[in-house]
């Protein structure tokens, strides 16, 4: 076997992810020389690293090429996912700076773990090989396990990390086993090559087609765990509740970004032809739409019962995974792969801004004694903090999917592609559960605006425990993203207009 030259590796196409990985390693060194009381400098350097990666991403954005011997794809899909990951990571860093200081856990490693995890998400979005997906998934997850348990001497934080680690390791095993079975059937781990071998395998009607089927099922389990869809969602509420809030915000968004990006790549590039004879619909479509329906129903209904805001947002994030999964399921209909991928990507970006904003506001209300933010903490917020309450109300409306917010654009594109795929029952479940979701999101608005009279006397003007300039920047950025995407969705749709996963390699 020849050793490939640098040119053959085509490293420049993978620069956005590689530069972030290198920058993070460098930061690991630099951090050693920063004095303990000035660890916030690490945060600024981390933001700088993200900026560099963002610029490389702009250069690579409209390319359509592979790198690292076909293991890595640089295309619009990768570019768009990278943007979402970078934005989410940057906002999470802004959220973290003061939070870490306030909770006495300011350590440089935190930002380094955050960046490693982001690198993992970027590699996941670009992976064209089951092995790369696995490695990237671990790179994404392992820092998250550590960060979830980052709060010292807090049993819930430790429980969160431990639980996430054990279940996460278990689900990775499913993923690897699935990859192994698919390798056994097709003789390759490369997504494109799997695609070209599927038809042959099905034609022979040998045991290989069963391996392929079983492997697909196990991949769905592994990735389903990462994005938290029913019935692989059990860990979510506990982990979200226990982890430090900025970490929760980060993982509710970036783990989903990475997970869904891989999900879409595997399903649309490698396995669209895994269908019964004479059928244009992939066999996994039914499974995915049932999972999506279960996720929507469970996530939305259980969220109603929550009074702890972090748990409520955890269930809401499960529900949103259900909406995105609707698009993935729709991709199983021949010819819809690309529009489904576009809808899912825009939904993910919309969700990124909105959800980070919601978590940021919840974080502002969080007291330092480690107690939970409950729905009651929002009572009378519109009086005490009119601007903050307005922004939170806007994020809630976006999570419901009311027009002029980004949430509406995402939902509408997802519903449209679901209808095009003929999954009408799923679409109806989707809209009806949206109404259910309105109930619990509106409760926060009710508490902020309509129940002000019940607020305890003396609450007026009370200092917000978690407020800081950086957090405000993060909230404003989330708001701007939510609003702009809602009013001018063309800005986002133009960024994904040539996403072509399904048509990249015509049959």
């Amino acid at each position: 076997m020849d050793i490939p030259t640098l040119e053959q590796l085509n490293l420049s196409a993978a620069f956005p992810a590689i530069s972030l990985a290198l920058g993070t390693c460098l930061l690991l060194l630099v951090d050693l020389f920063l004095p303990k009381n000035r660890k916030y400098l690490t945060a600024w350097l981390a933001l700088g690293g993200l900026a560099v990666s963002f610029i490389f991403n702009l250069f690579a954005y409209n390319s359509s090429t592979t790198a690292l011997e076909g293991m890595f794809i640089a295309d619009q899909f990768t570019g768009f996912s990278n943007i979402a990951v970078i934005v989410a990571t940057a906002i999470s860093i802004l959220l973290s700076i003061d939070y870490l200081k306030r909770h006495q856990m300011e350590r440089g490693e935190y930002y380094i773990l955050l960046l490693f995890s982001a690198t993992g998400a970027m590699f996941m979005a670009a992976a064209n090989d089951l092995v790369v997906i696995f490695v990237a998934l671990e790179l994404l997850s392992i820092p998250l396990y550590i960060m979830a348990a980052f709060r010292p001497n807090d049993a819930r934080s430790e429980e969160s990390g431990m639980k996430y680690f054990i279940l996460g390791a278990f689900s990775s095993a499913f993923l690897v086993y699935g990859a192994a079975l698919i390798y056994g059937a097709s003789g390759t781990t490369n997504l494109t090559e799997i695609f070209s071998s599927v038809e042959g395998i099905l034609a022979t009607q040998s045991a290989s087609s069963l391996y392929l089927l079983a492997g697909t099922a196990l991949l769905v389990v592994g990735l389903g765990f990462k994005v938290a869809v029913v019935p692989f969602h059990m860990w979510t509420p506990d982990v979200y509740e226990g982890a430090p809030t900025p970490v929760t915000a980060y993982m509710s968004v970036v783990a989903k970004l990475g997970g869904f990006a891989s999900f879409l790549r595997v399903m649309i590039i490698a396995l669209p032809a895994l269908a019964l004879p004479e059928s244009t619909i992939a066999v996994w479509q039914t499974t995915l739409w049932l999972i999506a329906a279960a996720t929507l129903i469970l996530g939305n209904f259980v969220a109603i019962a929550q009074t702890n805001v972090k748990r409520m947002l955890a269930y809401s994030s499960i529900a949103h995974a259900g909406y995105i999964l609707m698009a993935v399921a729709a991709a199983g209909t021949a010819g819809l792969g690309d529009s489904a991928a576009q809808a899912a990507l825009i939904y993910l970006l919309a969700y990124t801004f909105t959800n980070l904003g919601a978590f940021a506001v919840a974080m502002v209300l969080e007291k330092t004694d480690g107690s939970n933010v409950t729905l009651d903490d929002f009572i009378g917020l519109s009086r005490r903090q009119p601007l903050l309450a307005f922004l939170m109300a806007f994020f809630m409306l976006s999570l419901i999917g009311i027009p002029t917010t980004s949430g509406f654009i995402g939902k509408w594109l997802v519903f449209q592609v679901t209808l095009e795929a003929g999954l009408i029952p799923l679409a109806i479940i989707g809209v009806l559960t949206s109404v259910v979701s309105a109930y619990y999101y509106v409760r926060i608005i009710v508490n902020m605006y309509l129940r002000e009279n019940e607020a305890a006397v003396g609450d007026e003007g009370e200092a917000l425990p978690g407020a800081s300039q950086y957090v405000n920047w993060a909230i404003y950025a989330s708001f701007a993203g939510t609003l702009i995407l809602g009013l001018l969705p063309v800005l986002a749709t133009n960024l994904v207009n040539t996403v072509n996963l399904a048509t990249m390699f015509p049959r």
Partner: protein
Amino acid sequence: MENTGLSLTTVTLFLPMVGLTIIAGMALLDAEKNRENFKWVAFAFSILTFFASLLMWANYNSADPALQLVQRNDWLPQYGISYYVGIDGISLLLVLLTTVITPIAVFASFRSHVIHERGREALYYGFMLLLEWAMIGVFVAQDLVIFYIFWEVTLIPMYFMIGIWGSENRVYAAVKFFLYTMAGSILMLLAMLYVGTQAGTFALPEIVNAVQSGAVSFPFDGLFSTQSFLFLGFLIAFAIKVPLWPFHSWLPDAHVQAPTAGSVILAGVLLKMGTYGIVRFCLPLFPEASVAWAPVVGGLAVIGIIYGAWVSYAQVDMKKLVAYSSVSHMGFVVLGIFALNAQGLQGATLQMINHGISTGGLFLLVGMLYERRHTKLMAAYGGIWKALPLFGAISLIVSLSSMGLPGLNGFVGEFTILMGAFGSEVLGFFFALFATLGVILAAVYTLAMFQKVYLGELDKEENKHLEPMHWQEIAVLIPILVLIFWIGLQPVGFFNTMDTSTEAIVNYVQPHIDEIVVENAASVSEAP
């Protein structure tokens, strides 16, 4: 693409938004110092919007059935969605209704106790303008998605208005209002997406043309087929808004809890969005389903007319009485629409305006009594005419207009609707007969209320020294009275404005009525 330049429609639509921006700016600068100024900004911009809409009327050519004052710009070209606004006669009249009712509602809020007590003027008047923007948007939007955006946005300010400035049970009423209407409209979203995907565009005039020419067809095969489901998807959203019996249960709660101005806008304009939607979307897009379902919907409308009137009569709370009377009056509008002929549709359109004016007026009057006595129960009043003769006289006129006395506006609309229902090929005699019963019942409950509140002895001590009418209260009622007499005595101008537009919509449906008549005739001749 045609007319990408700024049109008068856009100007009218976005004037409230300019006002909203100014209010937001003032609130951010110094909310405390500007407390008294917000209302003037809101009032000034709602009046400006009114003048702009008058300009629209002046520039509207009623002989031309095409869309006018059109503007169309790309919004999301890949998906066939554009910012597409324009008016026909029906839209124009409803825009005028909106721009008349909004300044009245704003001005009526000046003297409201609730707003003084709860404060937050910036939020209140900001929501008023946001609401006006969205309501005008609903009536001028010619693109399904744009329509849906405005439609949903109307929810938010109304929700807050009920929830923040409402009476005791406001949170319950606000949440019910929100969830109820959202549940309906989100199914409409699915139906819209389906229609838009099939047609390849979301521009309504283009889809209607494609449906008429047969380029796009939604398969129709009886009451339960693709077209019927789409029809129902739209209809249920609209029926909840109207509200058509049995989808009405949110309305009494919302009305009773809402502040006066909220009730005025809710009854005056928001309910009309439902009936307007039926005319604009259901009939042209799904003509066959409309014909097939007309007897069912017409039947619900008649039930609503009688049920609303009946329940009104049983009320002890004035606001609840007026709210249930809305169910009855809006039943007439739906009946007129599903008569599926020119008369019925014209009557329905005029009745939308009439109901907006009369019921808006009634809510204003109830609100003024409430400001004085802090109760809406009829039993607390009696003999008010003796205490406030001018107030009593105005109330009499508005009540008579609401129950449809000849010479006042209500009569013209209801009479035309009943004529339409009688002559209708799909509804016919019995529908009109029972609806006529509703007219009689309307007289019963309206006069009963008038008698209990205004006539009789002035026997309660608290009622003897009521504050006389303030000039602002009189000023707010003058436009209502003018319109009541104007439409009652000279309705021709209004009919002329919408003539060609209603004609066009009837023409979409007429061929399918003829088909059914031919089929029925054939089956009758086969039968023996």
